[in-house]
């Protein structure tokens, strides 16, 4: 309890709580701009962390992170353009309800669901992160190596669509992480005699480029494609009353509970991502809706304004936000790409996520945890203020003008990390590489994980092999290192499942194309 009180006392210092509230409002506004996803919103705010104390900087980031995911529902409902990828499915029933003249009700369900999912995940973070971190403190070199392998395997294993591309992405990240002085001997590697590369590729500009600059390129190409197809955005529906009755709230309780549980379970898995949680919970909500409400008088069809279709994805995506911080804060492994950006925010203030964060910067670690809870409590009134006051002005910002804003904020943010022009080039090249990877359908997540885990993987491997006299069997020794053996067994399982999924998909594809090729003239 003392440590939780420490977190609250750090958070409730006047400047810190104020900055958290600013982060929530800013995240809501930025998240509700179509085309700005959670990652861009976060990357845009990283530069602000340079000039303020770490407590305030991280409170700002927590506010932005929680609110940007929730804010994405606003344009999804109002104009059927999800502000963030997390609001992809909210757009279906949400916009249908808005077009029926119930935009206020749809927005209210979305915000309330986000708050409920967010509070549930904050509690998961509060309980599990410190416990897991305490356990992780007992890890030695052997266990740290196994943990890094498990982290990489979990993300690669979840990409059953193309395991090989997931592996390539992770290897790109791991190779990039070797640039600079060797952690073992101090030998300079891949530095091209440049002093700027001696300590490795600067991490903050790299992240800003991978997310922000790549997103700017995507936005430009989207605009180019839209202009070619002559797509136009239809007029805004009226928001109207934001109330929804107790009867509907009682009806949504099971959906909120199940979606928040799914979001929390998936959020704590490194690399699983928000989309998987959203689709799973949406599917569960659809089954329940069809079983209980479909066809009844006064009920809309699924996809045509069902309240469960808004509540499920919103509760799930907000449940992922804080729970994805569990592996990051406790083990140093990011739960998703946005929480990976959190590493950059911590790095700016000389902090490294993982068990040592709780021992070396306990007040900060606990403040981050309780900040998630408070941010979600602030989110509810803040969202209604934003809806009533600034939403319409936000939609009026031309998408085209955002290109320059995102580029300049990200580039200056990269430059501000050490006031070095070299960082601008790093951000630009990282943006080009990330955009190229997107085009080639090589996922970015494993590369980020490779970048983050690379140094830990190399140093723990080297030290563990020194202890064992070069024997690799030390990692699977069930007597002296049972945790390592168990983690590596779990990692193997992830690989087997991924390879099986990939093989099954390939077989289904070939079976699907066989009749066509059989029937084609020879």
């Amino acid at each position, binding site marked *: 309890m003392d440590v939780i009180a420490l977190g609250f006392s750090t958070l409730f210092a006047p400047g810190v709580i104020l900055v958290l509230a600013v982060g929530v409002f800013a995240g809501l506004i930025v998240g509700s701009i179509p085309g700005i996803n959670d990652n861009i919103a976060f990357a845009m705010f990283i530069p602000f962390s340079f000039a303020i104390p770490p407590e305030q900087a991280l409170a700002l980031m927590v506010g932005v992170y929680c609110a940007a995911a929730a804010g994405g529902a606003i344009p999804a409902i109002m104009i059927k353009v999800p502000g963030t990828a997390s609001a992809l499915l909210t757009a279906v029933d949400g916009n249908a309800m808005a077009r029926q003249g119930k935009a206020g009700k749809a927005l209210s369900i979305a915000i309330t669901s986000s708050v409920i999912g967010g509070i549930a995940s904050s509690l998961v973070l509060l309980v599990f992160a410190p416990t897991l971190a305490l356990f992780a403190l007992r890890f030695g070199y052997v266990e740290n190596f196994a943990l890094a392998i498990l982290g990489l395997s979990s993300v690669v294993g979840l990409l059953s669509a193309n395991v*090989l591309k997931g592996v390539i992405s992770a290897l*790109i990240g791991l190779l990039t992480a070797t640039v600079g002085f060797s952690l073992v001997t101090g030998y300079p590697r891949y530095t091209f005699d440049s002093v700027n590369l001696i300590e490795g590729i600067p991490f903050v500009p790299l992240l800003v480029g991978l997310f922000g600059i790549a997103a700017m390129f995507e936005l430009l190409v989207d*605009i180019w494609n839209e202009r070619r197809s002559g797509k136009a955005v239809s007029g805004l529906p009226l928001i109207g009353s934001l109330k929804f009755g107790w009867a509907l709230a009682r009806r949504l309780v099971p959906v909120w509970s199940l979606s928040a549980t799914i979001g929390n379970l998936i959020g704590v898995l490194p690399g699983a991502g928000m989309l998987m949680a959203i689709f799973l919970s949406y599917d569960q909500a659809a089954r329940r809706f069809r079983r209980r409400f479909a066809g009844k008088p006064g009920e809309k069809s699924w996809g045509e304004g069902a309240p469960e279709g808004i509540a499920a994805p919103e509760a799930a995506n907000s449940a992922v936000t804080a729970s994805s911080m569990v592996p990051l804060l406790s083990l140093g492994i990011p739960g998703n790409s946005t929480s990976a950006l959190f590493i950059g925010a911590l790095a700016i203030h000389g902090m490294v996520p993982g068990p040592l964060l709780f021992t070396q910067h306990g007040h900060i670690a606990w403040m981050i945890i309780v900040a998630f809870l408070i941010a979600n409590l602030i989110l509810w009134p803040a969202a209604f203020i934003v809806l009533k006051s600034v939403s319409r002005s936000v939609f009026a910002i031309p998408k*085209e003008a955002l290109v320059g804003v995102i580029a300049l904020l990200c580039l200056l943010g990269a430059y501000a990390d050490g006031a070095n022009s070299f960082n601008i080039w790093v951000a*630009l090249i990282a943006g080009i590489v990330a955009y*190229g990877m997107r085009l*080639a359908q090589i996922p970015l997540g494993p590369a980020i994980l490779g970048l983050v885990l690379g140094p830990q993987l*190399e140093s723990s491997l080297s030290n563990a092999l020194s202890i064992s006299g070069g024997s690799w069997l030390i990692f699977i020794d069930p007597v002296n290192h049972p945790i390592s053996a168990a983690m590596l067994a779990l990692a193997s399982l992830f690989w087997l499942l991924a390879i099986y999924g990939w093989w099954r998909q390939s077989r289904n594809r070939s079976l699907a*194309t066989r009749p066509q090729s059989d029937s084609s003239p020879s």
Partner: protein
Amino acid sequence: MKLPSDLWIGAVLTGIGVWALWEATGFDDRSRTYPMIVAGLLAVSSASMACLSFVRNQEQLALAGPLRAALPAGGVIAAWAAALSFGLGFLLPTLLMQIALLWLGGIRGAIRILAYAVLITAAAYGLFVVGLEVPLPRSRVPGLM
């Protein structure tokens, strides 16, 4: 314009992997093992991706959008970064970069573009230089910030 993505990207990444592997052979004994393993695995995985593209239906890489929209934007940012590095100050290169990016983004009308560019540049200057006190690269041109 379209390219078979896996073949070309696999070939490029194989090249990078082989180069990194060769470069790592010049490191000292204890520093070379790990990068050699990673580079070797990258080369093998990428070569596998390129080879698999022959036996599977190849996905085509649509390059028209990236070439017409993203590539010029990358060029504009590179020119801006070069201008900052050469000491042309912050305000003029940033204003020009914004004008170019807004035009590439599809905004038309000289006054509209100029108004947006001035607004964004001034806001960024106020935020980073005045607010966050980030020291800008030195200008070699007298009187040009």
